[in-house]
């Protein structure tokens, strides 16, 4: 990948558990100082991949290089990685200070030196004064910070995080997300972050690898994945998406004319090889790129009529489910409050016009 120094290089990595391919020939490079997320539903292989990086599982095939050194025969305790475990794995028989200082033993520091580092860490994760507490005296969020401090005190080149925020409630999670990102940027370490929460991955990461059934489907920056997903699976996983069947009516010059099931005939730029004459493809449009209006507006190039079936009010925005001819499932339209040029809230069975810009059309290969 151009522009990325391959600090971590994963080549054709596979892990089989008997007949099950938990990780299937994944190729990946991660740069130094990057916040990189592995995103996918449970069972997609992201945690297995992370554990292979840490050294807890050995690959069935493929290689891992960290800083140009092969990790093939390197045991976990010799790797330049440190991990924050999903259940935090705080030692119950040690207090917070001793937990954090645990990994310093190999460095043989003086007592005062290690105390100083521990104090530093406690401050960094905002747990100063909690040093004497034990694991069962801490809340989930506090334990998570201890796990973080314990890993970071060793100044690893790579920090591996296995769904670290999964057990926290929404508000706390959002706070921690901001803190983590800030921490990563100030420390400059590579973070590899495993999560099933796509909002989390999109908010925090420099780049994301969307995984499913052991394979990496798309590896790119969040914006790229959101606006240009390369497959239905990826598009469907990230955010909400409207999928419309279509066939290619005409093709010239990188532009395609498409016959869609319910949006009529539309045009879109098309460079992908699967867009061929008479091919069946799928058109995808994000709900927020569809606009509602009572009448067809004269400047709208693309517009179609429909009827509102139901609406969901979400506080800062609303989702409208609009049924259109030629399609069973209603289209989802997301409108920010105060954005609809409609004056008043819309009721069910109101006829409306949907419009969208050319650039919002995404072409995907039929599944």
């Amino acid at each position, binding site marked *: 990948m151009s522009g990325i120094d391959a600090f971590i290089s994963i080549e054709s990595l596979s892990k089989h*558990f*008997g007949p099950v391919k938990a990780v299937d020939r994944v190729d990946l490079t991660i740069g130094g100082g990057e916040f990189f997320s592995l995103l996918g539903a449970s069972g997609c292989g992201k945690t297995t991949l992370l*554990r292979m990086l840490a*050294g*807890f*599982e*050995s690959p*069935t095939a493929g290689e891992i290089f960290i800083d140009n050194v092969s990790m093939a025969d390197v*045991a*976990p305790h010799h790797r330049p990685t440190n991990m924050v475990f999903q259940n935090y794995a705080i030692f119950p028989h040690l207090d917070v200070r001793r937990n954090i200082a645990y990994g310093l033993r190999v460095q043989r520091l003086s007592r005062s030196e290690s105390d100083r580092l521990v104090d530093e860490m406690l401050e960094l994760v905002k747990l100063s004064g909690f040093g004497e507490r034990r694991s069962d005296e801490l809340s989930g969020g506090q334990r998570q910070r201890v796990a973080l401090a314990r890993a970071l005190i060793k100044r690893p080149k790579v920090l591996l995080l296995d769904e670290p925020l999964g057990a926290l409630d929404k508000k706390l999670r959002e706070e921690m997300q901001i803190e983590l990102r800030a921490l990563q940027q100030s420390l400059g370490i590579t973070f590899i972050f495993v999560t099933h929460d796509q909002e989390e991955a999109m908010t925090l990461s420099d780049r994301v690898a969307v995984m499913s059934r052991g394979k990496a489907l798309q590896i790119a920056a969040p914006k790229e994945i959101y606006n240009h997903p390369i497959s239905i699976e990826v598009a469907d996983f990230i955010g909400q998406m409207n999928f419309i069947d279509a066939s290619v009516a005409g093709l010239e010059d990188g532009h395609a004319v498409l016959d869609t099931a319910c949006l009529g005939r539309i045009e879109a730029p098309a460079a992908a090889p699967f867009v061929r004459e008479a091919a069946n493809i799928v058109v995808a449009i994000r709900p927020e790129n569809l606009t509602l209006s009572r009448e067809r507006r004269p400047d709208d190039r693309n517009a179609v009529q429909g009827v509102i079936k139901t609406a969901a009010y979400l506080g800062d925005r609303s989702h409208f489910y609009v049924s259109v001819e030629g399609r069973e499932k209603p289209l989802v339209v997301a409108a920010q409050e105060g954005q609809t040029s409609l004056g008043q809230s819309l009721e069910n069975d109101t006829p409306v016009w949907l419009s969208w810009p050319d650039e919002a059309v995404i072409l995907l290969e039929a599944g």
Partner: protein
Amino acid sequence: MKDVSYITRPSQPLRGYAILFLAFLYVPVLFLPLFSFNDSIYIAFPLKEFTTKWYEQMFSNQQLHVTLVNSLRVGAATAVFATILGVFGAKAVTQYRMPGRKPMVFTIMLPLVIPGIIMGVALLILVSRLGIPLSLYTVTLGHVLICVPFSMATLIARFEGFDRSMEEAAADLGDNAWWTFWRVTFPIVFPGILASLLLTFTVSFDEFIMAFFLSSTEQTLPVYMWTQLRFPQKLPGVLALGSIILVVSFVVVFVSQWLRGRGVAQIPGGGTEP
């Protein structure tokens, strides 16, 4: 074995140790059957001819038959009583929240830890002061005392995995406590009950010290064997008897533990207590 994660990857030296340990555990006992087929009164190497005469002798020994029947009767009675008490106790302890539950369980489990001689002697004194003559009944009492902890432990493991809502459903559908027990509880905990019966029977059958203190003329098998140990010419016969007992109890206990372990989820710590 690449399938296994780093922490639990196999260890050859430990495996060797485990085999050695099992050998240490079982090999000494195997000497008994070994010499029971040996055509010699002396329990020594080198081995003489193979013979089954000790077994034949044993089978024709009338006194042996009597003590065998005694042991069977005591064992059966102990098994039944200890298991009944164990069922009540296990059900109470696992399904009802009671203050002071832990101390009560501790008290019930106490016989496991108190030296046999203390209990034997204490019961002997009690029974003699109460004017009760020593007999197989007193032996049974002593055996029930030491078997209830085994029964409780076996059944607690079984009851712990038991979903109370099934009993509640039965009650909701019209069954009172008695019927609920027989139609719902009993069938589900049955493997545990069976395991407890087998285990307590075996413990009672093999038990020596309480029987030694609490029996008089009517002896149980272990007490009989003890008296025979003094006579060298009877020794191979004792070995023959012992070998059969060992084989049978191994099989019975194996089955009992297997029943106990099956169906109980591999909860860490659950299902593995004695």
